[in-house]
């Protein structure tokens, strides 16, 4: 990188560029006035405004001023730096100036979106003036380059994990696939025929899982979990613990399958693909990796005791339970049967454990509520409804829904076919959810009633033999990993991407990516798309053999450091160590920072008794000047 010597030594000539952001900023901040005010500050040689600074003409404005030698420092005042800091840094780099001789003032989120009129303009002036003051003190910096290991750990062996592992491997990247159960395929293993292709879930799983097993570049560890984590992008150290399958609810089945060697390499319906014998003893190892992909998936919502009669009546079951039952049900009867009983009429209820509304629905014991839509249940429910009608013409199906969300390619057909096969639809409002009761008389075990908005609010009551609850998705509980790796989680408890459009498969933790339903409900197509998008990001990240990190890390002034070790004690990530050095022939200890680990938090700066440590790009002196500028404004 060419960090021009001239830049740091010559007198700062600051160019200030103020964005209208369409009207987002200029509707509330008098940007021309701000530009005018800033122009008066000594050292500011250019003070411009532009409708969209991030657009090409906007960026060119800066580049021309740099190239013509007018300016050697840049301040952009626009939206939050999280959106565009990189855009402008790259623009500056392309104009052959050190990209760190630039500061960003946020006058949108922190100003125009929250203040109006003169106070907004005054605040913008202050924020920009502070940025100018800081900019004058900036030094050219170079990004930190660290070698990256051409290896990825994929956590979770469902559709997302398998898809990502296969793709990464075909790009020549070594993969360790870590799956906590003895099986591959994840939740899809609990499905039969799939929306929208009618493909068998087992076949799809087998196709991917077999390819992964046969791939010498993919190392699969089942019955494994991550118990330790350290390092940074390109160089993570992950501790994986493998242990014999423990006693979970499916112990019996699992023991049966896993002790039978002939099951290896088979897809076992409603269990999963069995890739290899299970370990017999506990084992721990450390894997060095460049990138981590999360594909930990979801679990289905378990209705509360008594929710629509669940747990109270054996005739109330969930959709996954029903899918499993249907897969084994004989199709040669006129009636569906369940638990040996003839089912004359079945009711299906949508949105159980999804789309919950505060004030209407009850929160769970942890005070959580699933306010989101689970996206896949409508189609899966209609598929099941249609299948009942088409295979068991004498079994009636009643469908209780809030909105039918057959949004995807091929999904609306299921709605049409369900309607054509005489599934009866009833629409309810969340505040008037269906009521399930025991039938005191007659020969139907249950009774369901609802205020049906399709018939203009009529109270409908029906006797039924079976009730199927379309339960939604919840993220798999991975709090251990979340805490260990300090991962961002949304209010919906799914892992939270940096930005749904700008960086949809990345977590804020550089080098940790997201694939599939651990991010949000998705169907298999969407899961695979997301997994491939994560794989392509990993491939781009690792392709160069190194990664570049921002240089905003602590640096030690050896002349001032006396080796007190105060910084070492406070550093939360162990990035500072005391190292022996020879000064004037004397062996002493001095602080040394590992820039790849340092997060630039600045705790050490506050602690150092000699002001010998400072964070580059955010030095104490820069802060002082900013404060002075704010006070002066």
């Amino acid at each position, binding site marked *: 990188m060419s960090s021009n010597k001239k830049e740091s030594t010559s007198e700062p000539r600051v160019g200030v560029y103020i964005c209208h*952001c*369409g*009207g987002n900023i200029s509707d509330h901040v008098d940007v021309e006035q701000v530009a005018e005010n800033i122009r008066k500050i000594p050292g500011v040689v250019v003070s411009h405004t532009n*409708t*969209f600074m*991030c*657009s*090409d*003409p906007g960026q060119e404005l800066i580049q021309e001023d740099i190239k013509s030698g007018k300016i050697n420092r840049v301040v952009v005042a626009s*939206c939050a730096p999280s*959106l*565009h800091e*990189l855009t402008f840094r*790259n*623009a500056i780099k392309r104009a052959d100036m050190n990209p760190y001789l630039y500061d960003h003032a946020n006058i949108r989120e922190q100003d125009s979106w929250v203040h109006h009129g003169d106070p907004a303009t005054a605040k913008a002036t202050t924020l920009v003036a502070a940025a100018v003051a800081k900019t004058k003190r900036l030094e050219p910096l170079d990004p930190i380059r660290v070698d990256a290991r051409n290896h990825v750990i994929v956590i979770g062996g469902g559709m997302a994990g398998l898809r990502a592992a296969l*793709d990464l491997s075909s*790009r*020549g990247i070594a993969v360790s696939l870590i799956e906590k159960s003895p099986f591959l395929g994840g939740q899809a293993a609990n499905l039969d025929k799939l929306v*929208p*292709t009618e493909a068998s879930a087992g076949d*799809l799983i087998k*196709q991917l899982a077999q390819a992964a097993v046969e791939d010498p570049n993919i190392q699969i560890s089942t019955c494994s979990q991550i118990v330790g984590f350290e390092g940074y992008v390109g160089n993570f150290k992950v501790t994986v613990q493998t242990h014999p399958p423990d006693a979970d609810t499916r112990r019996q089945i699992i023991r049966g399958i896993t002790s039978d060697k002939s099951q290896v390499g088979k897809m076992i319906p409603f269990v999963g693909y069995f890739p290899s014998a299970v370990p017999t003893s506990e084992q721990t190892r450390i894997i060095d990796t460049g990138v981590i992909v999360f594909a930990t998936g979801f679990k289905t919502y378990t209705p509360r005791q008594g929710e629509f009669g669940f747990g109270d009546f054996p005739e109330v079951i969930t959709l996954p339970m029903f899918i499993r039952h249907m897969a084994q049900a004989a199709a040669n009867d006129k009636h569906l049967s369940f638990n040996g009983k003839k089912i004359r009429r079945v009711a299906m209820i949508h949105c159980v454990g999804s789309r919950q*509304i505060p004030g209407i629905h009850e929160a769970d014991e942890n005070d959580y509520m699933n*306010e*989101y*839509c689970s*996206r896949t249940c409508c189609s899966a429910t209609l598929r099941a409804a249609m299948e009942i009608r088409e295979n068991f013409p004498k079994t009636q199906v009643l469908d209780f829904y809030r909105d039918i*969300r*057959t*949004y995807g*390619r*091929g*999904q*609306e057909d299921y709605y*049409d076919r369900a309607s054509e096969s005489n599934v009866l639809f009833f629409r309810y409002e969340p505040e008037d959810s269906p009521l399930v009761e025991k039938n005191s008389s007659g020969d139907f075990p249950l009774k369901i009633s609802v205020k049906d*908005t*399709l018939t*203009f609010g009529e109270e409908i009551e029906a006797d039924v033999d079976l009730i199927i609850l379309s339960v939604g998705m919840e993220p798999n509980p991975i709090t251990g990993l979340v805490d260990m790796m300090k991962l961002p989680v949304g209010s*919906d408890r*799914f892992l939270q991407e940096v*930005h*749904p*459009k*700008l960086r*949809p*498969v990345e977590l804020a933790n550089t080098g940790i990516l997201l694939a599939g339903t651990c*991010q*949000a409900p998705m169907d*298999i*197509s*969407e899961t695979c*798309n*997301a997994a*491939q*998008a994560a*794989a*392509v990001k990993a*491939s*781009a990240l690792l*392709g160069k053999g190194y990664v570049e990190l921002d240089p905003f890390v602590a640096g030690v002034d050896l002349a001032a450091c006396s080796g007190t070790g105060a910084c070492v004690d406070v550093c939360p990530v162990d990035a500072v160590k005391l190292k022996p050095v020879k000064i004037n022939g004397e062996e002493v200890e001095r602080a040394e920072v590992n820039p790849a680990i340092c997060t630039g938090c600045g705790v050490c700066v506050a602690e150092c008794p000699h002001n010998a440590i400072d964070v580059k790009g955010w030095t104490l002196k820069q802060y002082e000047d900013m404060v002075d500028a704010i006070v002066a404004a």
Partner: protein
Amino acid sequence: MSRELHFDTLVVGGGIAGLQTALDLADQNYQVAVIEKDATIGGKMIRLSKVFPTLDCASCITTPKMAASAHHENITLFTYCNLKSLDRDSPESVTATVTQKPRYVDPDKCIGCRQCEYGCPVYVPDEEQGNFNLRKAVHIPFSNAIPQIAVLDMENCSLCGKCARVCPTDAIDYFEQPEDFIIHAKTAVLATGFELTPIDQKPEYNGGKVQNLITSMEMERLLAPHGPYMRVIRPSDGKEPDSIAYVQCAGSRDKTLNVPYCSRVCCMYAIKQAMLLSGALPLADITIYYMDIRAFGKGYEQFYQNAKAMGIEFVKGKIAKIEQADNQYVSLRYEAQEDGGRVVEREHDLVVLSLGMVPGWTPQGVCQVSCDTDRFIKSSMPQIAPTVTDMEGVFVAGVAAGPKDIVDTIAEAGAAAMEASKYMTALGKQKAA
């Protein structure tokens, strides 16, 4: 002889799907060509106001991707180009014939100063602004277009020579002719996006005849920071609307229109626009007439519930008829499901049709790739590799493979880039062997 160029991947379509695919390939060091039929890249997204569910302004998140593609050393953009043919001639090579449409402006000379535009005496309806205002015969498409190069619309040019006289770099060339060139690549990605269903498709809605009955894309323009009026007013007479309505599924889920499928974004964009409107016009009543609200994406249901809480009225009912009422009002007739099923007639200042999505391009006659019954490009592995088509080494991304929102489009673009890079890695391995 036509110019022949060589790349690793040819991306057809410079919307957000094509750009994201190009970026994900270029970041892996593949050489990418993007061809775009319009004079600017950015597709529909750059023309939107703000985007759900984050309500970021569309420009703020599209321009960085546009600029990143334009400046990427591994990406070459070809705007204002038509794809004439795309064939696979061997496992290693696809060949495309591309026509550069004449801009009548030399792209190497034009500096985007707009002097020509100010000088030109001809006003023409501006299709970029829903035809709500006029542009000049020579113009730059819009302020954040990339590239910032003027285009001359020869159909509406009087050849008066004014633009040539005022151009400081002598960039105007009235004699330019279309020119074909050839692109050779190893793989191709189709990201040709969508168009809205025609506004006059449903006779009972009288689209195109009734004043103040507009399309959802036109409403995006009214709400956009650089819209035709820079505020929301009625196109017929400039009245600030007191009541605005949305007619959902106005071109989708309707077998009679040959669009039986759900267009997947209309519920959410209607809710988004309703929210933006209630910000811009706090006193206006906003009503959404719908069949089902399909807010299925991450954070979308919460977005919908917020809109309800903000006082936006959701009325379940299918609009049967739309007509002009007095004083340029628009009258809607429907059966009110939540109100005893009686037929209701209501008038609004401004009515928006949430039109459906149809493919932006048909491969027929240009390329061998198959389409599905919905006429979007068919995936041959719709569940485990949705971007793979039945043409070897040719992939599909974004709305070209069926309606979807930006979030899903961007994920799919990454997936297409993955498939293309896998294909090329395999080619490389075969060669080495």
